[in-house]
């Protein structure tokens, strides 16, 4: 880790000293030894705060949507491979100019689930990392200006743990059982919208849930309002979600949101061959069409 942190700090220092960026957003030590948090550095002398390890769970791309952060202009951002796809999508969707960001990609070997880390878990292995890490295709970010290679070996995957296994289970269920499953999950929702706020791609100035002429989503924090919110959130992220899993991690009542996001990502790939966040020049899947698109369900 030392080598990684050195390179991270040197890169950040150089960028700040050369005025190539006005702000570096990276990770630093958090409130306990197994928690990391974001740090905002403007002074080259502060770069020693930067570090990276398997507890860097946050997707720092989320800060790019904050007006307070945008004001800094050129920003250097420390990102893992999954989070970097969020940067790509933001560029695709005109929320970020490529010229305004220096991507400091870090090679990530997997992030330890935060609830386990809070109980003292410190090792990276298939049973301790997030499901997204088990299906990860971007341990090295797809796009970066600087790359900080990992000193750690990749963890072993032997197939004992099936990531997102519940999706197949749900697919195999009857529609009534699926309904029961989700009703139970959404019942827990307290509509704090942390899923939205934690999502780097939920950048709307005014979320659809805040629109009341007409009221698209019932305001109640009960079965109906909750179901509508969760459904529409998932719909708006279909074909866009890059799978960083921040919504699910943020959810204080543990709704398995990634089961929906991942399902829709698989679906969009199957139907339209599109993977989000891969190419900054690609047309978003719901911003274009093909005359020969899937038509079977239409009479």
């Amino acid at each position, binding site marked *: 880790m030392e080598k990684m942190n050195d390179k991270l700090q040197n890169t950040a220092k150089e960028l700040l000293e050369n005025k190539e960026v006005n702000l570096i957003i990276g990770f630093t030590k958090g409130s306990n030894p197994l928690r990391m948090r974001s740090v905002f550095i403007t002074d080259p002398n502060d770069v020693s705060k930067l570090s990276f390890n398997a507890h860097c769970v946050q997707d720092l791309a989320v800060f790019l949507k904050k007006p307070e952060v945008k004001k800094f202009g050129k920003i250097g951002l420390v990102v893992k491979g999954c989070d970097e796809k969020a940067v790509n999508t933001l560029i695709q*969707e*005109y*929320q970020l100019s490529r010229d305004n960001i220096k991507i400091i990609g870090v090679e990530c070997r997997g992030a330890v689930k935060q609830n386990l880390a809070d109980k003292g878990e410190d090792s990276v292995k298939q049973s301790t990392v997030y499901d997204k890490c088990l299906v990860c295709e971007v341990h090295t970010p797809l796009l970066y200006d600087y790359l900080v290679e990992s000193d750690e070996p990749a963890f072993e995957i032997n197939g004992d743990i099936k990531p997102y296994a519940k999706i197949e289970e749900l697919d195999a269920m009857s529609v009534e059982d699926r309904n029961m499953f989700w009703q139970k999950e959404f019942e827990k929702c307290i509509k704090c919208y942390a899923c939205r706020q934690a999502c780097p791609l939920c*950048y*709307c*100035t*005014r*979320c*659809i849930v805040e*629109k009341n*002429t*007409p*009221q*698209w989503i019932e305001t109640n924090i009960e079965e109906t309002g909750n179901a509508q919110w969760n459904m529409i959130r998932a719909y*708006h992220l279909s074909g866009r979600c890059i799978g960083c899993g921040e919504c699910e991690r943020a959810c204080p009542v543990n709704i398995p949101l990634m089961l929906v996001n991942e399902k829709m990502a698989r679906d969009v790939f199957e139907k339209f061959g599109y993977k989000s966040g891969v190419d900054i020049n690609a*047309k*978003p899947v*719901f*911003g*274009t069409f093909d005359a020969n698109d899937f038509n079977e369900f239409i009479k």
Partner: protein
Amino acid sequence: MARIGVFVCWCGSNIAGTVDVKRVAEEAAKIPGVVEAVDYKYMCSDPGQNTLRKMIKDKNLTGVVLAACSPHMHENTFRKAAVKEGLNPYFIEIANIREQVSWVHEDKEKATEKAIDLLKMMVEKVKKNKAIEDVRVPLTKKALVIGGGISGIQAALDIANGGVEVILVEKEPSIGGKMIQLDETFPTLDCSSCIMTPKMVEVYQHPNIKLYTYSELEEVSGYIGNFNVKIKKKARSIVEKDCTGCGDCWNICPMHKNVKSEFNVNLSERTAIYVPFPQAVPLIPVIDRSVCLHYKKGGKCQKCYDACGPKCINFDLQDEIIEEKVGAIVAATGYDLMENSLYGEYGYGQFKDVISGLQFERLLSASGPTEGVVKRPSDGKTPETIVFIQCVGSRDPEKGVPYCSKVCCMYTAKHAKLFAHKVHGSQSYVFYIDIRATSKGYEEFVRGTMENEGAIYLRGRVSKIYEDNGKLIVKGADTLSGNQVEIAADMVVLATGVIPKKGSDKMAQMLGISYDKYGFYTESHPKLRPAESSTAGIYLAGMAQGPRDIPESVVSGSAAASKILGLFSKSEYEVEGTIASVNKTTCVGCFYCRRVCAYSAISKEEIKDRNGNVLKVVANVNSGLCAGCGACVNACFSKSIDLKGYLDEQIFAEIKSLAV
């Protein structure tokens, strides 16, 4: 507070026979906001309309709902009546209880219930309606035609003859396009230059036409009625107004070897200072700076300058940017032919005597490199046997394009016929897949080639061509007889497929019009609006839209012209006000709306503070371009864009009225 009047039409017994109209009116009267509900025998009749007008006036209505026939029948009738009483026409809504209730249901009870529901929906909708003003856009009555081929020329002349100023921009040094390269035209065999040249001259001399040759479009902004265009006039190195076209310059130019003539499709050479062909319009030469010795050798050669009487050669001229304001644009950028080299088995480029159809045109042409005598490129001998191969690239999804190039069947038949006329006793073989000769006189023309000129048509593909002892051996299949054939030919002519002009995709992007996957511009509607592009104010003509022959190109040029003259016949361009509008406060600028807009109606607008700093970039709907389809509304995540006349709130109100 809404004051809504409801009118339930009997339509004689058409509605009243199946729907209890009295009950519908009674139920309607109970809906909050409805001030009066009446039934009437024929609402569309004059007395019916007067009832409507009277209630609007007497009750000071804010909205009207008619339960009647389909809005496609009489919506306009009632809107006009409302306008006469000073009510905005968009406060009229129609519940369709005839076509969609009384005529399709028999159970009176259920039909009446449905009619009440439909009426309720419209009452709730009309409560949310807002006044809509139709959009009026000022018009700059001047047109731009891009491309000086036959369709562009036709469009320019028709518009100019209609009394409207036209700017014609042509990329090449002369107008004339592909048609002027042709020898004779099917099916009447008129000489192409004989019918084309007068039109070119007419363009040049027309007081309403401003011609920019050797010029390219650089930038287009604005919208229907108000386009701003920048035209790059490339430096010709000639002061045009002084040139007499005498030819002294090109006759003396020492660069007359190794520069292939584009006009003669590489079959001859041209000089560095040149006119592409003798009848060029304008008859003003241009210096090809990439080969001219003056530019290549640091100014040493200036023979043309010395020879020029009026001293109109100026080596230092620079490209010029001309800005023009126009109200409408015709895109007639034409076509190219596919690269024959894609077909290695035919030996194009490898064997000198395998040539393209357009090259053969030049060999046939009296103004061509051989002055109309058919000579083969390799040794200048007159060929006696020619094999013509059709569908080279066309209808071949594997190597070429899947579509039919439309003109090849006809021009091959023409080639065979003209060859027979020029070289007596010669023999043509034509390999074809199908013969498509569907216009007036076309079938007879092809038959004539077969029957009168003795051309042998073989249905099948050529598999290989090789050279043997000065002959081209053509191996192919005759699928009708099932035999393999082998022909020893002197020359092979390939009917290569038609593709959009190189760069037509870039042009489409500059114009903001849509194009298909090949690069052909797409029509606003393939059947009903074939002359219009997807963007209002931009019209299409000629091969740029897809393969077509000369008469069709001329028709399309005229069609575009008549559309423009129609547009310019009014003082302002008027469109229905049911268009999209953006809430710029909440718009976050993701531009999904722009991606799905088929009309390029959405642009980026910078919101600035008072010091000019950009605060954010948001979507802006150009009311002149918006067609009111609402795809953008569907694309907007934050619901910051809405469609007037079909607001989300109105749709929700309709749904809500059905709530149980």
